[in-house]
């Protein structure tokens, strides 16, 4: 990476490098919870997705949901990570009103997934970011402080929902890399169907570890952990603030206290939540209600067979087979739905045109209306038809844009729009010749001026022909015939 592109914090003569590690909490896509059979629907009425196990009634026992284990293993494989054949569920003990058991079942020393990596596409090449581990744990419920003026209300719908905590190595160096990392991780999990990655609904949140060190230093600085940030934008803002705060302290000769901080999204600042001394003693120990989780080679290899083509492979295929630029391929593979849409469109239409129309007009439309590609008013089939109509000269590119707009509003197929509105291109040379003759006849002065050397007037004649044909004349024919007649 070239020096000037690095994200550095400058203070006087000093330059600080920012070291970032993420602990991402990704909700496992699963119909039921990690240790109970209650449903996991988002947005349900409070306390309607709660079993006796989730509410920790006396004598209730956790039973592992095998599907969640599969999802974690799948994700591990997608992160090129080692799958641990033996892992252990531990209890993390602490008291809180929305933690019914008084402990969270998590994995501490022996996680289900070990070291792996994620590739980031930076403008000047790829960067490999290390994954430290992935472990499974239960989510807690939700304490609601703002409904009742005197009491805190508790909603246990989320209590016991399976989360994957994915811990990166401290390999990230800038807010932009964090952006790319989260997007790539989300993309991989969506490809795998293991997490929907929906940050608004809290399916993906992260604790952000930030430290800084002078450029060239080898030793890591003291880090601060910013808890539970739920959007990429806020993560970036929090890192920016935190790195600068730490730089200010070091410049003044101070030292960083290892602590847990909160990001205040309204004030755009981080503030101390608890210091290292106040850190909870979670008294982790293996959950005696659960036996160690042992996976067979057969179980893992069956899952391996279910792994679909992932973004990195797909990108390579798009570049090699479809001759896309890496940039174009990146855009098209980053979201699995987009890549599916693209591959559907090009089944029987021109790849180059399809790429341009999807990344251009279609993305603009979706962006404009704030829609996912799965909600696109223009189906892949209709877009493919439209592209073919351009390719075979039925309509011009310009008319195609008009047709596209109508398709966006009426979700009709382009052929019937063209028929209904009579937008078909005029490609009969005799008819065009007649119109060209008319235009020449009607504008003798301009013809004279053109012949005397005012070349620019050629556009005027094209415009006149188009006007008479409501823009439907085949532009190439118009050009050819005009040139012949005027010279």
């Amino acid at each position, binding site marked *: 990476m070239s020096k000037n592109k690095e994200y550095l914090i400058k203070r006087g003569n000093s330059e600080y490098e920012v070291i970032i590690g993420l602990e991402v909490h990704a909700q496992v896509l699963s119909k039921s919870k990690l240790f109970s059979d209650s449903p996991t629907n988002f947005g349900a009425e409070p306390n309607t997705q709660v079993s*006796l196990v989730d*509410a*920790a*009634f*006396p*004598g*209730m*026992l*956790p*039973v*592992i949901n095998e599907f969640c284990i599969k999802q974690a293993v799948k994700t591990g494989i997608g992160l090129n990570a080692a799958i641990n054949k033996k892992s252990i569920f531990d*209890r993390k*003990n602490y*008291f*809180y*009103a929305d933690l*019914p*058991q*008084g*402990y969270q079942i998590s994995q501490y020393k022996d996680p289900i997934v070990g070291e792996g990596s994620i590739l980031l596409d930076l403008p000047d090449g790829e960067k490999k970011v290390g994954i430290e581990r992935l472990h499974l744990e239960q989510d807690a419920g939700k304490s609601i402080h703002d409904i009742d003026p005197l009491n*805190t209300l*508790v909603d246990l719908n989320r209590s016991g929902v399976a989360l994957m905590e994915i811990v990166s190595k401290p390999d990230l160096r800038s807010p932009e890399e964090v952006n790319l990392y989260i997007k790539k991780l989300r993309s991989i999990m969506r490809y795998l169907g293991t997490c929907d990655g929906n940050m608004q609904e809290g399916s993906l949140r992260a604790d952000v570890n930030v430290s800084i060190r002078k450029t060239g230093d080898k030793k890591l600085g003291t880090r601060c952990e910013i808890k539970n940030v739920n959007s990429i934008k806020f993560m970036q803002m929090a890192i920016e603030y935190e790195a600068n705060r730490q730089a200010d302290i070091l410049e003044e000769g101070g030292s960083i206290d290892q602590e847990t901080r909160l990001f205040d999204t309204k004030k755009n600042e981080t503030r101390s939540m608890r210091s290292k001394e106040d850190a909870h*003693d979670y*008294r*982790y*120990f293996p959950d*005696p*209600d*659960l*036996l160690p989780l042992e996976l067979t080679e057969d179980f893992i290899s069956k899952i391996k067979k279910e792994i679909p083509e992932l973004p990195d492979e797909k990108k390579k295929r798009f570049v090699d087979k479809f001759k896309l630029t890496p940039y174009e391929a990146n855009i098209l593979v980053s979201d699995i739905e987009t890549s599916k849409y693209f591959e559907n469109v090009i089944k029987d239409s021109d790849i180059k045109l399809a790429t341009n129309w999807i990344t251009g007009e279609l993305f603009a439309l979706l962006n404009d209306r704030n829609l996912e590609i799965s909600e696109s008013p223009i189906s892949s089939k209709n877009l493919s038809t439209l592209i073919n109509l351009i390719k075979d000269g039925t309509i011009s590119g310009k008319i195609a844009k008009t047709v596209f707009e109508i398709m966006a509003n009426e979700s009709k197929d382009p052929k019937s729009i063209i028929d209904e509105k009579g937008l078909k291109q005029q490609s009969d040379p005799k008819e065009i010749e007649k119109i060209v003759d008319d235009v020449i006849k009607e504008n003798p002065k301009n013809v004279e001026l053109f012949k005397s050397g005012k070349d620019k007037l050629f556009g005027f004649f094209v415009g006149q022909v188009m006007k008479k044909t409501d823009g439907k004349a085949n532009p190439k024919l118009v050009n050819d015939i005009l040139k012949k007649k005027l010279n």
Partner: protein
Amino acid sequence: MSDIINLTLSSLINKIKKKELSSQEITNAYIARAEKSKDLNTYITTDFENAIEKAKKFDEKGNFDYKLPGVPLAVKDLFCTNNLKTTAGSKILSNFTPSYESTVTQHLWDEGAILLGKLNCDEFAMGSSNETSFFGNVESPVGKKVVPGGSSGGSASALAAKLTPATIGTDTGGSIRQPASFTGTVGLKPTYGSCSRYGIVAFASSLDQAGPMTQDVSDAALMLDVISKYDTKDSTSVNFKRGDYFKSLSSNIKGKKIGIPKEYRVDGMPKEIESLWQDGITLLKKLGAKIIDISLPHTKYALPAYYIVAPAEASSNLARYDGVKYGYRSGGDNLISMYENTRSEGFGDEVKRRIMIGTYVLSSGYYDAYYLKAQKIRRLIKNDFDEAYKSVDAILTPSTPSSAFKIGDKTNDPVSMYLNDIFTVPVNLSGLPAISIPAGKDKNNYPLGLQLIGKAFEEQNLLNISYSMEKELSFKNNLQDWWIK
């Protein structure tokens, strides 16, 4: 009436099947006796009206093929019972009524049994004398102001006093076998994983196991047939092939090899216990068994290891009793003070002591020295048994180092109270099955028990050996019904 309550469970069942007795007659007999036995304080909650109603229904159109057809039973108040208060002997659950049934009790009702009520126990099963219950001490029918043992003290007392033909308890460190020994009854702790823990208020999850408490060995086999079943709702339940325990009972133990562990000959053990053990050995020889001296070298570490592991798990298991969701809740200005008040007022001293010990041994900086070391010891103790079982089929020891003591004698000395469990805890730490059978009496005429420890999942072997001994011992409690009013 007095005939009915003097029948064993298996003879009661015979009489019901032959229609010599009705479920109502039996149920009424036990209820009548319970009404006159309130001074023993065995019941926390009675469900007599419903029991009579159910007995009536059974007599009208019951299934006589059931294993427990129309038999009334009272159970330890650690088993959650649908729609009937379940307290675990604690103030913190004194108002708690489950909307669900424990797997083990469900098995009883599925075989035709009828619930009489819930029996007193030490708070959260933490105790060896039933003196830690929020609902008061239980007296043993064997003597005035004598403890019935614990934690299944109410169960043992009710069984010995003939207030229930049989019962079930739970055993974490001896809570079935020690009270059985103190009251002259039979108590079986099955192999860990044999009976489901689902719906049993947890004390120490890796040690807790439900089991039968009965008048004789046949009844224990019969009860085990009913309650030992694989359960997918308990991840530690084991799917092994269970025997047909009652039908397969045999008193032929010729050639069985019985180990006598030298480490169980502890300092200061009363002579009467020593001679009880010796008599047991002589009897086994007479029955054709082969006696083999064995060594279980890590025995002396069992009690300390147990009093680390059990409190550690308990400290976490009991965290859910916080006043937020159910059970007793005290006031407070904020969440923390509500927690503190609720748990300070809701738990008794022994429970608090164990929560504090457990919290301490799991805390950072102490975990390795205590919890981890205790787990290593646990493995060594298990290895001792594995090694011994290469040369023997079962092991004979006394059930307890002393006979029953008076109420209040040990309440101010937790360590001497804990010593009661010295012969029983190694079994829980190893997950093995063990049975206590009445084998003699001390100078006060209080019962004394012998313990047989078996190989994992070989309950049948254990039952057969004790069955053959029981026949020869012909132990009788000869209670004087002094408590009846």
